[in-house]
C-alpha cells in the first residue's frame, strides 16, 4: 500500500501523453497549429505562383523609380508629372498626414465642446448637443464627406463673383476681412510668409514657451517651499507674447501674412484649400467629434460627485475643482478612447479617394496601382504605411496614457 507522501514513480515518456497529459498536450496542439498554418500559407503561395498575371509581372518595386506621369493637385513639396512614383507616393503620404493632423485637432475641439455642453444645465443646449451627437454618429462618414464636398463644390459662389467686372463697378463679392474667400474652387486663406530673419522670431516664441513652463514651476516651488502665491496667469501670457512681438518689431516684421489677391482669372497668393480637403477635414472632424463628445461626457460622468463635493468642502473654487480634481481623473478615462479615435481618423482619411483628395490611397493605391498594374506591391506598401503609422501613434499615446494612469501601490 502506498502512502500519500510517496513520490510519483518516475515514468518514461509515453506517446499517449501527447494527447492525454495536460503537460504535453499544448505541444501537440501547437504542432498541429503550425502545420495547419504552414499548409494554409503554402496553399495560398502556391495559388499565387500559378496565377498568370503574377507570373508575367513578377514581384518587384522597380516601378517606383519610373516617372509617374500624373498630376497631383495638392503639392506640399514640389512635384510635376515627370517625377517618380516614389515621389508621388511620398506626397500622398504627406497629404494623408496633413489632413489627419488637421482633423485630429478640430475633432478634439468639437468633441470637448460638445461633450461638456451636453452636460450643461441649459436644456436647449444639452438637447442640441445630443441631437448633434446622435445624428453624426449614426450616419456613415462617407456620406458626410460626400455631402460636405457637394456643399463646398456646388453652393459656394463661383470665382467670377470675386472678379472685377469689365465696366469697373464693384465685384459682387468681396473677401471676408480681406483675408478669406470661399469659392467653389476652394477656400482661399492667408499664407504665413517667412522673411530672412523670420526664424529668429519663431525661435524667440519657442523660447518663450519654455519660459512659461519655467515660470510656472518657479511659482509652484515658491508656493510649496515658502507658501507664497506668485501670480501665474498674466505673467505667463506676457512672457508668451511680448518677446516675440518685440523681436518682430525690432527686426522689421520678418513674419508676414500674405492675403489672397484677385488676379485676372483667379486668386494669387494665399493658400488654396480645395473642396476635397475641406470636405475630408470637416467631415472627419464633426463625425469623430461626435464620438469624442461621448467619450468626454462619459469621462466626466465617471468622476463621482463626492470628488467635487470633497474639493468644495476643502474650499477650492469651481475653476480649481475642475482643473485640480475632476479633470486629472476624467482624463484618465478619456485618453484611451481618444487615442483610438485619433487612429480612426487616420484610417478614415483613406476615404479621400471618394472625393479626389490626393492622399496616399489615391496616389499609391489609386493612380499608381492602375497605371502600373502592380496591385500586390502597391497594396502591401499602402497597408504597411497605415500599419506603421497606427502602431507609432498608439505607442506614443500609450506612453502618455501610462503617465496619467492610476498609480496603484
Amino acid at each position, binding site marked *: 500500500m502506498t502512502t500519500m507522501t510517496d513520490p510519483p514513480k518516475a515514468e518514461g515518456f509515453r506517446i499517449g501523453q501527447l494527447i492525454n497529459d495536460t503537460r504535453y498536450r*499544448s505541444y501537440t*496542439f*501547437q504542432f498541429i*497549429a*503550425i502545420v495547419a*498554418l504552414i499548409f494554409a500559407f503554402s496553399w*495560398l503561395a502556391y*495559388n*499565387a505562383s*500559378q*496565377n*498568370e*498575371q*503574377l507570373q508575367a509581372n513578377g514581384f518587384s518595386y522597380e516601378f517606383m523609380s519610373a516617372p509617374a506621369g500624373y498630376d497631383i493637385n495638392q503639392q506640399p513639396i514640389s512635384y510635376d508629372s515627370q517625377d517618380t512614383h516614389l515621389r508621388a507616393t511620398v506626397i500622398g503620404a504627406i497629404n494623408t498626414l496633413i489632413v489627419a493632423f488637421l482633423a485630429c485637432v478640430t475633432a478634439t475641439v468639437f468633441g470637448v465642446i460638445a461633450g461638456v455642453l451636453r452636460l*450643461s*444645465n*441649459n*436644456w*436647449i*443646449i444639452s438637447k*442640441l448637443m445630443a441631437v448633434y451627437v*446622435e*445624428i453624426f*454618429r*449614426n*450616419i*456613415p*462618414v*462617407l*456620406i458626410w464627406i*460626400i*455631402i460636405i464636398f*457637394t456643399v463646398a463644390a*456646388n453652393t459656394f459662389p463661383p470665382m467670377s463673383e470675386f472678379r472685377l467686372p469689365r465696366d469697373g463697378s464693384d465685384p459682387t463679392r468681396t473677401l471676408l476681412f480681406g483675408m478669406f474667400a470661399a469659392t467653389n474652387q476652394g477656400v482661399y486663406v492667408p499664407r504665413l510668409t517667412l522673411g530672412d530673419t523670420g526664424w529668429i522670431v519663431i525661435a524667440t516664441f519657442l523660447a518663450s514657451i519654455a519660459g512659461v513652463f519655467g515660470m510656472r514651476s518657479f511659482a509652484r516651488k515658491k508656493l510649496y517651499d515658502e507658501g507664497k502665491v506668485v501670480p501665474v496667469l498674466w505673467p505667463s501670457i506676457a512672457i508668451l507674447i511680448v518677446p516675440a512681438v518685440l523681436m518682430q518689431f525690432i527686426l522689421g516684421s520678418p513674419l508676414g501674412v500674405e492675403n489672397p489677391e484677385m488676379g485676372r482669372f483667379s486668386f494669387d497668393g494665399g493658400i488654396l484649400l480645395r473642396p476635397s480637403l475641406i470636405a475630408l477635414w470637416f467631415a472627419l472632424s464633426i463625425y469623430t467629434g461626435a464620438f469624442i463628445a461621448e467619450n468626454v461626457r462619459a469621462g466626466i460622468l465617471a468622476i463621482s460627485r463626492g470628488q467635487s463635493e470633497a474639493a468644495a468642502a476643502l474650499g477650492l473654487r469651481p475653476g480649481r475643482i475642475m482643473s485640480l480634481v475632476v479633470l486629472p481623473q476624467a482624463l484618465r478615462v478619456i485618453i484611451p478612447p481618444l487615442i483610438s479615435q485619433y487612429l480612426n481618423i487616420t*484610417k*478614415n482619411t*483613406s*476615404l479621400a*479617394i*471618394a472625393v479626389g483628395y490626393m492622399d496616399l*490611397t489615391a496616389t499609391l*493605391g489609386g493612380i499608381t*496601382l492602375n497605371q502600373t498594374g502592380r*496591385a*500586390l506591391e502597391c*497594396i502591401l506598401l*499602402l*497597408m504597411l504605411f*497605415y*500599419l506603421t503609422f*497606427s*502602431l507609432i501613434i498608439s505607442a506614443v499615446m500609450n506612453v502618455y496614457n501610462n503617465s496619467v494612469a492610476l498609480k496603484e501601490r
Partner: protein
Amino acid sequence: MSEVHAHTVAFVRTSEIPASPPPVAEAGAVKWIKDNLISGPFNTIMTILGILVVAYLLAGLIPWIANGTWTGADIRECREILQGSGGGCFAVIAERWPQLLFGFQYPDYLRWRPTLAFVLLFLAVPPALFVMFLPRWTLIVTAIYPFVAYWLIWGGTILSPIVAAVGFLVGYLVFTKVEKRGFVQGLAAGIVAAVAVWWIGGVIAEEFSRVGALEVVESRALGGFMLNLILGVVCVSLSIPLGIVLALGRQSKLPIVKGFCVVFIEFVRGVPLITLLFVANVVLAYFFPPNSNPDLIIRVIIMITMFSSAYIAEVIRGGLAALPKGQYEAGDSLGLDYPQSMRLIILPQALKISIPGIVNVAVGLFKDTTLVSVISMFDLVGMIRGPILSSTDWTGVYWELWAAACVLFFIVCYGISQYSQWLERQLRTDHR
C-alpha cells in the same frame, strides 16, 4: 412630550396646515425656465444662441420639406411644379425608390423575394436579440433564416440551402454524441460529418437542380440598401464566432496560437477597411486556385468579416479580462477541462459583458459597408453617386437623395444603438 403638557399649551396645533402653493416664480414652467434656461448671464446667452441655431435650421428645413413635391418624372417637371418655391424635389426618391433599395440590376418582377427576406428578418432577429425574454426554441427560426434568405435572394434550387443546413445539423448532432470523449474529438468528428453531408448533398443538389428552383439572380445584380443590409448582417454574424476564437487565441498560453492571433488582430486593426477592400477587389483573386474566380461579393464578405472579427475579438477580450480571476480558478477547481470551463463558465459571462460593445462594432460595420461603393459596387451610396446622379433626368438633385440615404442609415443605426443601450440596462446586474 407628555400628555399633560399637550393639553396645557393652548397654541399647539392639532391639525396640519394645508400645504399652500409655492410662489409663482418657484414652481412649474417658470421655475423650470429660470433654472434651466436663464440661470445666469452666460446661460442666457447660450439659450439665445441655441434658439437662433434651431430657428435657423428649421427656417431652412421646413419650407424645403413642406413645399417639396413628390410627383414629377424628371428634374424639369419638378422645377415646373415647384416654380421656385424653394421646396425639395422629392419626386426623385419616389421615382427611384426601388433602385435605392435594390440596385438597378435586380429584376423588377423578382423584388418581392428580397422584400420577403427583409420581412422575415424581423421574425428571425428577435430570438437572438431578446434571448432572455423569448423561449429558447424560437432560436430555431434564427438558425433557419440564413438558408431561407439565401434561397430567396439568390434563387436557385432549394436543395442547396437545405443541404447546407442539414450539414450543419448533422455536424452538430455528431458533435454532441462524440463530445463525451473530448471536445476536440467531437469537433473533428462533427466537421468530418458535416463535410461528408455537404459533399454528398452537393452531388444530389446538382442532379436535381430543378427541385424548388427560383430564378437565379447573379451576385453582381445585388445593389442599393439591400446590399448594405446583406453585407452588414452576413459579416457581423460570421465574425462573432471568429471573433470569439481569436479572442480566446489571444488569451491562450500557447505561444504560437497567441502570436498568430495577436499579429492578425493588430494587423487588421491597423489598416483602413478600404485597403482591405482593395485587396478583395484586385489582390485576393491571386490567392484562389486558378480558374475558381469567386464573386466580388464573396471576396468582399471575406475581407469585411476578417476586419470586423478583429474588432469583435478585442471587445470580447475586454469581456474576458473583466472577469475576476476567481471564475477561471473556479472552473479549474471543479475539474473542468479548458473547453468545458470556457463554454460553461467563462464565455457566458464574458459575452454578456461584451454584448453592448459587439453591438457598437456591428453599427460601425454597418456604416462601413458604404465603403464598397469605392470599389464600384452599387450599394446605396454607389447607386446615388453613380446611376442616379449621373442620369440626365436627375442631374443636380443632391440634397433630396443624400437626405434619403441619411434617413435610411439613421433609422437602422439609431435603432440598433438604442437597443444596445436598453440591453446594457437590462444586463446591469449590480445595484447602483
